[in-house]
C-alpha cells in the first residue's frame, strides 16, 4: 500500500505539471510563425518580384505557342508538335502565373497608396496593364473589373474584350498621371528594367497604349500615344538574362538549348522564308543576312536543322528579352500614319527603325555588320516597280504597309505581338497580310482555350467553351 501512495503522488505531480505546462508547449517561434517565409514585404521588394513575373510571362510557353501559330516557329517533337498542329485543349493552358502576377501588380498599387508613392503606383499600373493585355489578347473576354478581390468576388465575371481594352487604357492613363507626379519613389536598385527612370516608364505606358489602340483600329489614337512612346532603342523595356540554369537564363535559350532541345525549330517557318527573301533580293537597300544569322543557326540540334541561334545570336543564355521596344513604337507610328495616309511621316518612322538596325542594334544587343544593310527608303521605293515593293502592288499605301508589317513580323521575333498581327491584319483596312501558311487543316488558330482550372473553378467561364478557331472580338 505504501507503493500505491508513492505512485499516486507521483502521478498527481506529473499530471499537474503537464496540465500547467501544456499551453506552453505551443509557445515556440517555429509554431507561432512560419519559419520558412515572411508574411509581409515592402513595396520595392514586391516590385522586384513582380517585374520578374511580368518578364517570364513574355517568354513562356504561351508565347512560344503564339509564335508557332503565327508561323514564326515550327513545332517538331513531343508536345510542341501537337501545338503546332493546333491540337490543344483546355488543360494545355493556365493562368498561373499570369493572374497572380497581375494581382501582385495590384498589391503594389495598394502598398504605394498607403505610402503616398505615386511613382510606385504608376509602375504597378503599367505592369498590371502589360499582363492583362496579354490575357485579353490571347483569351478574349477575361476577368478584370472584379479581379484581385477574392473576398468580394470569389468568382469574378468575364468582361467583354473591348471593355477590357477600354479599362486598360484608363489604367494606363492613370499610370501616366502617377508617373508624372513631381515626387515619388521608383527604387532604382530594385527596378532591373528602367533603374527607377520614371520617364522611361511613362514612355513605355504610352507605347502600350498605342499598341492597344492599334489593335482596335483607332489609328489616330495609336499615332498620338506612339508619339509620346519609347523614343530611343536604349529606352527599350527588356528583361535581362544571365547564365544560371533555372535562375536567370533566357527562357528561349532554356527551351531551345537546355530543356527541350529539338522540340521546335525554324525549319520551314514563314519567318525564315521572309528573311531569306530579303537577302540578295531586288531590294538592294536591304540585306537581312546578318540579322538572319543572328536569329538562326544551322545544325545545332540535328544535321542541317535550322535552329534558334543559341550559340552567338538572339537566343544566347544572357540575351535580354523585350517587353516593349522602340522598334515596336516606331512601327506602330509607321503603320498608323500609313493607314492615315501620312506616307512621308510613316516612311520616316520606318526609316528610324532601319537606321537603328543598320547600326546592328536589336533588343539591347548588337548583331554582326557582315551582311547588314538597311539603307533609308524613299517613297519611290514603294512605287509599282520600286525596289521595296516586294509584292509589286500598284498602290503605294499597300506597298508601304506591306513593308511595315514585314518589318514588324521580323522585329517581333518570339513576341506574341506577332500572333496579334497575324489575326489583326486579317481584318484591318486596307487589307494587307503576309502570306503565312497554315500548319495543317483549313482553319486559322484565333485564340487560346480557357484554362481547365478556370472551367473547374469559375462558373462564369463563357459557354459553350470556345475552341481555338473561334475569332476574338478585337480581331474580327
Amino acid at each position, binding site marked *: 500500500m505504501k507503493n500505491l501512495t508513492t505512485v499516486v503522488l507521483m502521478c498527481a505531480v506529473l499530471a499537474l505539471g503537464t496540465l500547467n505546462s501544456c499551453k506552453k508547449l505551443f509557445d515556440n517561434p517555429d509554431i507561432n510563425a*512560419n*519559419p520558412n517565409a515572411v508574411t509581409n514585404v515592402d513595396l520595392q521588394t514586391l516590385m522586384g518580384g513582380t517585374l520578374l513575373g511580368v518578364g517570364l510571362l513574355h517568354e513562356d510557353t504561351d508565347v512560344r505557342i503564339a509564335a508557332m501559330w503565327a508561323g514564326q516557329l515550327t513545332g517538331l517533337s*513531343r*508536345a510542341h508538335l501537337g*501545338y503546332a498542329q493546333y491540337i490543344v485543349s483546355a488543360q*494545355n493552358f493556365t493562368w498561373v502565373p499570369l493572374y*497572380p502576377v497581375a494581382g501582385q501588380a495590384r498589391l503594389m498599387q495598394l502598398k504605394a497608396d498607403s505610402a503616398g508613392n505615386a511613382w510606385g503606383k504608376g509602375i504597378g499600373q503599367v505592369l498590371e496593364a502589360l499582363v492583362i493585355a496579354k490575357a485579353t489578347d490571347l483569351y478574349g473576354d477575361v476577368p*478584370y473589373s472584379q479581379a484581385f478581390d477574392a473576398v468580394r468576388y470569389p468568382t469574378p465575371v468575364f468582361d467583354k474584350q473591348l471593355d477590357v481594352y477600354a479599362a486598360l487604357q484608363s489604367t494606363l492613363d492613370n499610370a501616366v498621371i502617377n508617373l508624372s507626379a513631381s515626387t515619388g519613389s521608383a527604387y532604382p536598385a530594385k527596378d532591373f528594367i528602367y533603374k527607377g527612370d520614371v520617364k522611361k516608364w511613362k514612355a513605355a505606358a504610352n507605347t502600350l497604349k498605342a499598341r492597344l489602340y492599334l489593335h482596335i483600329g483607332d489609328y489616330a489614337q495609336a499615332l498620338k500615344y506612339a508619339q509620346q512612346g519609347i523614343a530611343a532603342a536604349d529606352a527599350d523595356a527588356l528583361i535581362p538574362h544571365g547564365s*544560371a540554369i533555372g535562375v536567370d537564363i533566357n527562357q528561349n535559350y532554356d527551351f531551345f538549348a537546355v530543356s527541350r532541345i529539338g522540340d521546335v525549330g525554324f525549319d520551314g517557318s514563314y519567318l525564315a522564308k521572309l528573311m531569306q527573301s530579303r537577302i540578295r533580293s531586288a531590294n538592294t537597300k536591304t540585306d537581312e543576312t546578318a540579322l538572319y544569322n543572328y536569329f538562326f543557326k544551322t545544325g545545332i540540334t540535328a544535321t542541317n536543322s535550322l535552329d534558334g541561334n543559341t550559340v552567338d545570336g538572339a537566343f544566347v543564355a544572357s540575351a535580354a528579352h523585350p517587353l516593349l521596344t522602340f522598334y515596336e513604337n516606331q512601327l506602330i507610328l509607321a503603320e498608323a500614319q500609313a493607314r492615315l495616309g501620312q506616307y512621308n511621316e510613316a516612311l520616316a518612322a520606318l526609316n528610324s527603325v532601319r537606321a537603328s538596325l543598320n547600326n546592328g542594334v536589336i533588343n539591347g544587343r548588337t548583331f554582326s555588320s557582315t551582311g547588314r544593310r538597311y539603307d533609308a527608303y524613299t517613297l519611290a521605293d514603294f512605287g509599282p516597280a520600286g525596289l521595296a515593293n516586294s509584292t509589286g502592288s500598284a498602290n503605294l499605301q499597300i506597298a508601304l504597309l506591306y513593308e511595315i508589317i514585314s518589318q514588324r513580323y521580323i522585329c517581333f521575333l518570339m513576341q506574341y505581338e506577332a500572333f496579334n498581327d497575324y489575326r489583326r491584319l486579317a481584318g484591318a483596312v486596307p487589307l494587307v497580310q503576309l502570306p503565312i501558311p497554315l500548319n495543317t487543316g483549313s482553319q486559322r488558330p484565333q485564340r487560346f482555350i480557357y484554362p*481547365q482550372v478556370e472551367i473547374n473553378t469559375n462558373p462564369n467561364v463563357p459557354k459553350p467553351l470556345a475552341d481555338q478557331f473561334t475569332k476574338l472580338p478585337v480581331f474580327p
Partner: protein
Amino acid sequence: MIKTLLTGIIVFFSFSQISAQDKIITGKVTENETSAVLPGVSVGVKGTGIGAVTNNEGKYSISIPSSANVLVFSQVGMQTTEISIGTQLNINVRLTQDNKQLNEVIVNAIGIETQRDKFASSVSTVKGKSIAQSGEANLLTGMSSKVSGVLITRNGGDPGSGGYIQLRGQNTINGNAQPLFIIDGMPVSNSNDNVGAAAANGIVQQSRINDINPADIESVEVLKGASAAALWGTRAANGVIIIKTKRGSNTNGKLNITYKSALSFDRVNKLPALQSTYGQGSGGYYNQGNKVSFGDLISSRSGGSDTYITRPGDAGYQGYVTFPNGSQRYAIPSGTAASPHGGKNSTDTYDHYDDIFQTGHFWENNLSLSGGDSKSTFLMSYGNLKQDGIAKALSSYGRNTARINASTQFNSWLRGSANVGYAKISSQRNQEGDNVDGLMLGATRTPADFDNRDYAGTYTSITGEQFQNAHVSYRNPLGKDLGTIYANPIWNLFNNRNSSDVDRITGTMELNVTPAAWLNVTGRTGIDNFSDDRTERFARNSATFLNGYLSKNLLVEKQFNTDVFASANKTWNNQFKGTLLAGFNYNSRRRSTRSDAISNLIIPTAPDILTNALNSNLVAGNSTSLIRTYAYYLQTDLEALDMFYLTLTGRDESASTFGNKTSSSFFFPSAALAWQLTKLKAFNQLGFLDFAKLRVNWGQVGIQPQPYQNLTVFSPAVYGDTFTRGLSSTSSLYGGGYSRSFIEGNNYLKPERKTETELGLDLRMFKSRVTFSATVYHNKTKDVILSLGVPNETGFTVRNTNAAVLSNKGIELDGGADIINQNGFRWNVSANFSANRNKVVSLAGASVYTLPDAFLQLASLIPGQPFGVFYSTDFLKDGSGKYILDKNGFPQPGISNEIVGNPNPKWQGGLGTTFAYKNLSLYILFSRVAGNAVFNGTRGSLYSIGTHGDQGQTATAPAGGLRDVNGTLIPGGSSFQGYITDFGAGPVAINQAWWQGRGSASNTASYKQFVEDGSATRLREATLTYTLNSHSFQQFTHLAAVDFSLTGRNLVLWTKYTGVDPETNVTGAGLSRGQDWFNNPNTRSFIFSLQIRY
C-alpha cells in the same frame, strides 16, 4: 472434409476406455522457434481423459496406463502435437505456433495486449515470419495480399524503392494519405519525400518504414477501423499499423542463436514491347540522328557495314567519333525517295532492354541472440542486406540494422524495458519517369537499329578539334559537343548518380509500475530520429544538365513521443469486470531540410563539392517545421456475463497546427461492442460452431492540418513554366524581389474528422479447423482540408479550406480451413477478399479538384465520383457519345476534360494454401487486384517516337488508296508502316501522321485512348520450406534446427496491361494513382534461404 471429421470422431471414441495406470512420464515443453518454456500446456493421453498441465518451467509429469501409446500436447495458439510414447519415460516436446488466428493475443492502439476474442474492432495480423518469408526485401511490400482491406502498391522496381499502402480507400487529400505506423508504442515516420532536382519524378524514393528489418518483426497489426485507432486522434484517419518487434522469452537462461542467410536473384518481370521492323528516320527514309523511328524497312537493306561520309569537305561531312575500342563512326547519308536507306546498310537490330538490365540480387544475413529467465529477457539482433538492382550500374540498396530489446522485472511492482533499433540505409537509384535522363525513356525511344552500347567516345569536329568524353546517343550519334536531348541509357547508368544515406535511431523506454494487483501505471517515452543525406550528380554532357549538376540535400526528422497512462481493474463479481485506463500523450515532430545545388561545374570530374561552380550557379534552400500535439485519453473496457465486451474511448487532443481563429482542442470518441454469441445456450445445438462473435463499433478519428497553412506568405520570387526551368529573383540581375504566395492562407482550419461504423462477424467451426471473418464498414470524412483551386484572377490559385466530404464503404472477408490434417500431412487454405467503394461527396461547391501530384492533370476529385478519377481529354463526341469524324474519317482532338478512367480497384483478394508433410511445407499465394484503370503514358508517348511494339506492322493500301489523318492519299498497292482501321466512316490509315498527331499522348487530342485495364492476377509467392530438427540431427550437431527454404516471388503475372507491371506509379506514394510514364520495371525473384537455430 466431413468424412475426415467423422473419421476423427470415431477414432476419438474408440480409445475412450480407461485403463490401469502403471507408468510415469516426465518432460519439458518449449516453443519450437524461440525455445521459450511453455507453461500451461495440456498433456493428455490420447483416447483417455487422463491429463496434466505443464508448470511455470514448462515441465510436466503424467502417469499413464501401459496401454497408452500416444501423448497429445495442446495449447491455444500452438499446433497440437502427438507423440508416440514407445518405451520413453522422458519426452521433451517443441510446439510450433499455429498461424491461424485463434484466441490469440493482440496489441491495441496504445500497446496493451488484449485477447482477440474480446476485441470488437477488426484487426488483421501479419506474422513477422510470413513477411520475412515473402521474399520482399522490405516490410511494406512484404505484407502485400496477406490481409484483407489493405492495398499495397510498390512505387517501382528499383532496389529499396518505397511502396504505397492504403487501408479502406482514400480518406484525405491533405498531405500524405498513409496510415500511422507505431513501433512498440512509438509513432514513427514513414515519409517518402522527393526533394531536389528529382522532385519532379526522376527518382523513386524510399518509404521510411522500410528501414525496419523484417526479421525483427514479431507481428504487424493493421487497425483498419476508426474505433480501434481513435486513441491516436488526429493522426489516425488513414488507419494505424502496429508493429511489435521480437522479444526474448523465458528460456531458463538458455541462449538461443538464430542465423539466417538469404540470397535472392531478381529479373525484370514485364516490359513494354518495342518494334524492330523500321529504322531511325522519318517518312520511310533512314535518317541518322533523327528523333523518331518512322524510317526505312530494316529488312530490305542491303546488309553489311554502313556507308560513311569520311572525307572532310564532302557534302554532309560532320567529323567523327572514336570509341574506346578504336572503332569510328561518321555521318551516314540520309535516305531519299530514290534510295530510302541512304547509306544505312546494316540490318542489325539491338535489344535496348538487355543493354541496361541484368539479374539483380540481394544477400541478406540476420543474426539474433535471445533468451531470458523468469525475470529478464533480452534479444539482440543484427541484420545486413546488400542488394544490387536490375539496372546494370549505380542501382543498389544496403541496409544494416541492429536492435536490442530487453526487459526486466526489477521487483514485484516495477518492470522496465527498452527497445532500441538502429538502421543505416545507403542506396543508389537510377533516373526514371518523364525525364530525358530517365532509364526507360532513353532506352525505349532509341531506334531498333541504333547500338546504345557505344555510349561514349572522342568527337573530332570538322575543324579537327577533339572533344573527350563525348556522350553518344541516338540523337547525337557522333557525340558532338552539344545536348544529347535524350540520354543514352547506358551512359546514364554509368555517369549519373543519385544516392541516399540514412541514419536512423528509433527506441522506446518503458516503466511499468504495479502498486496493487488492480492498478498498473505505464510510462513510455520514445524517439525516432533520422537524417537522410542525398546527393544527385548529373555528369557533364548529361541530357538534363549539359554542364553538369550537383545537389546535396539533407533531410532531418526528429520525433519525440511520451505516453503516461494508468489502468485499473475491477471485478465486481463473476459476471462483471471492468478496466479503466487514463493517459496523457505528448508528441513533437521537427523536420528540416537543407538543399544546395550547383550547375555548370567548373571541373566536371571533381568530387561532390559545392564550391565547384561560380556563385551565380549556386541555389540554396532550407525549410523547417515543428508540430506539437498533446492529448488526454480515456479507455473503459467492460466485460459482462462472460460474453459482452464493451470498449469506450475518448481522446481530447490539442495540436499546434491550427490557426489562431479556431480552437486548438478537439475530441475524438469511439465505442465498440463484441458479443460472443456462442456463449448463449441456444448455440450449444450447433455442434459444428465452436465460436461466434458479433462486432459492432463506431468511432471518430481525425487529421490535423499541415503546419503553416494559416497565413499567406511572401517568398523570393520564382516563376516556372511547363517546359523550361523558370526564373528566380535570387539572381544578382534581379535584385532579390519577393512574390506573394499563390496559396491563400486560412486561419480557420479545423481538423478533418472521419466517422466510421463497422459491423463484423468472426466464426470458428469444426474444432476450429474452419475460420471465417467478415466485416462491413462505412466511413465518411468531413471537413477534409482541401487546397481548393480558386479562380486565378483572384490573385491566388489555391485556398486551403475545410471543404470536402469523402466517403468509403466496403466489405472485408477472411477465411481459412484445414482441409486435411492427419498422418503428418496438413493442407490448409486461406483466402481474403475486400472491396471498397469511395466517393467524393462534396467539394464545397467546386466542380473539380485536380490532385496536386496528378500527372498530365489526370487524377481529380469530382463530386459524385470515386477518389482520383482520371479527368482528361477524349476525342470530340456528339450528343450520343459517338466520335465526330473529320472529312478524312478520323476522330478529332478534344478541347476540354471529361472522366476517362477510374484507378481505384473494384476488388482485391489473396488466396494462399499450404501443403505440409512432416517437416516439409509448400506455401503458395495468389493475389488479384481487379478493375483499376492505369494510364499507359509510356505507350502514348512512344507512339509519337515510332518505337512501340504496335508500330512494327506493315500495311498495304487497298485499290483506290487510303487517306491518313492529314488527308494525304496513300496510293493503292503501296505499303506503309502502320495498319488500317475504321473509325466508322470507312477504312483509314494509321501511320506516322496519326501517331505524331492525334494518336499520341504527347498532346491532348485524347488521353483516354491510353487508359488501360490494370487488373492483374499474380502468383505472388511460392515458398518451399524444409526443417531439419530430428532428434539424431540435434544430438549430432547440437543445433536446434536448420530451416531451408526456396521462395519464388512474383513468379507469374496475368494482366492485359501492355506496359510494365501495372503495380507501379510515376508519382510514387502520392494521392494520384495509376500513372505510368516510363516507370522503371518491376521484378520477379528467386530467394534461397538458410536458417540455423541453436
